[in-house]
């Protein structure tokens, strides 16, 4: 009886021995992340005009429980506007180390400017390198800082570790090559 139980355990493990491993070979094969995944933030642009959506209202900063967002607004030049609103974010910085990827900023943003994207490969070496500025966040920037740094050094394109098999309306315009 009890020996049977031992044998049963052996049987179960043996069955698994001959089943396929469930391992995702991550760096070689991309990870399929889900549409709502909370990854690195993206500052989106208006699809038609190409203007930034962010109007520098700081609601995201206010909603952030970790106080990881710094926004400094400035008035738009009416001739040559940066954003769709009256004002735009002159400085928009996120301290990625502080950020907990909760999505409160996304929820609080009235214009849908800040969206949590897909990049999760953010590991880097220096504390100071984690303050992502507008360039790093605007939607043309692909990958994380270390990834883009490496791409620049080696001359190869950024290799992203995930694939995006679905459409995310709020991320329109973001291209992952």
């Amino acid at each position, binding site marked *: 009886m009890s020996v049977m139980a*031992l044998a049963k*355990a*052996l049987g*179960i*493990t*043996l069955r*698994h*021995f001959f*089943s*396929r*491993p*469930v*391992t995702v*070979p991550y760096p070689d094969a991309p990870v399929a992340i889900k549409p709502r995944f909370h990854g690195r933030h993206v500052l989106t642009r208006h699809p038609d005009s190409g203007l930034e959506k962010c109007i520098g209202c700081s609601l995201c900063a206010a909603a952030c429980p970790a106080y990881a967002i710094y926004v400094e607004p400035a008035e738009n030049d009416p001739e040559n506007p940066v954003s769709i609103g009256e004002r735009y974010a002159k400085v928009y910085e996120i301290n990625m180390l502080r950020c907990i990827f909760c999505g409160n900023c996304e929820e609080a943003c009235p214009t849908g400017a800040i969206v949590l994207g897909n990049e999760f490969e953010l590991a880097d070496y220096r504390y100071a390198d984690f303050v992502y500025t507008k360039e790093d966040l605007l939607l043309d920037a692909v990958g994380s800082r270390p990834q883009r740094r490496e791409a620049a050094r080696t001359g190869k394109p950024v290799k992203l570790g995930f694939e995006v098999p679905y459409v995310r309306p709020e991320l329109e315009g973001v291209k992952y090559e």
Partner: protein
Amino acid sequence: MIWQLFLTAVKALVLILALLFAFAYITWIMRRGLARFQVRLGPNRVGPFGLLQPIADAVKAIFKEDITVERADRVLYWLAPLIAFTFALAAFAAIPVGPDGWVVANLDMGVLYVFAVSELAVYGIFLAGWASGSKYPLMGGLRSIAALVGYELALGMAILPVVLMTGSLNLQDIVAWQQKHGYLILWQFPAFLVYFVASLAEMSRTPFDFAEAEQELVAGFHTEYASMKFVSFYIAELLHWITGSALMATLFLGGWAAPFGLPEVPVLWLFLKWAIFIFLVLWIWASWFRTRYDQMIRFAWGVLLPAATVWFLITAYYVAKGGAL
């Protein structure tokens, strides 16, 4: 004479290197094998299929800082890994991997040699535990004694019927006997069972791996060991597994003798039979729990030892009656 000695030395060197190589790859097999039981891949990124993984580990270990802890008993702290390492390697010297000449030391009482070595090997572990001057290792060391006290007798009692049947303590003879009369696992299945269970304890593999139970004793007796000293223990630990499996293959599965009248190839058959036991141990490792050391001692004395003794008497009667083949 000199030539003889030289030959021995060469053989010994080859065997040791082979064993170390086997160790290196047994870590790989272990990691990959366990991984397969656990539906994952295991090391596969260092070299093709992760085959260079053991080498990377070795390189790292060699260039790692070596620590001698302050409270340690310095002499023993250094001696312990050496003892563990040497005795772990030792047992294989008597195991024949092929017909005459394919053994480093064809001892006329090879079984006793193996038996003695397996007892002495405990010193290494035990002293390591004590010499570290720290609590977790001490407990690990004591548990190794507990294990010894449990398995050693059952081990001896389980070999006795084999010796009875074959009438020899020489491993080469035992293999030859099996070549003639069929594998001992068929004749001596109860003895094999007892031997197998006791061997698991001797190799300190899963149901009986409490001497280094990570969940309780951090890393057991080698908690305070770093760098190559730790590696020595690691080698010793896995070599027990390698040697124990080879020994079981020799004692009960006909050793290097080819099965089913297939052609004799010295190392090959032993290797294949050995692989069976390696897998078996790995399989059990992946499937079962760890016992408590008192339960193991009780099991060994209350079940294994009486069972082995009774079986010994049965075999003895059979042999004494003149039934020996």
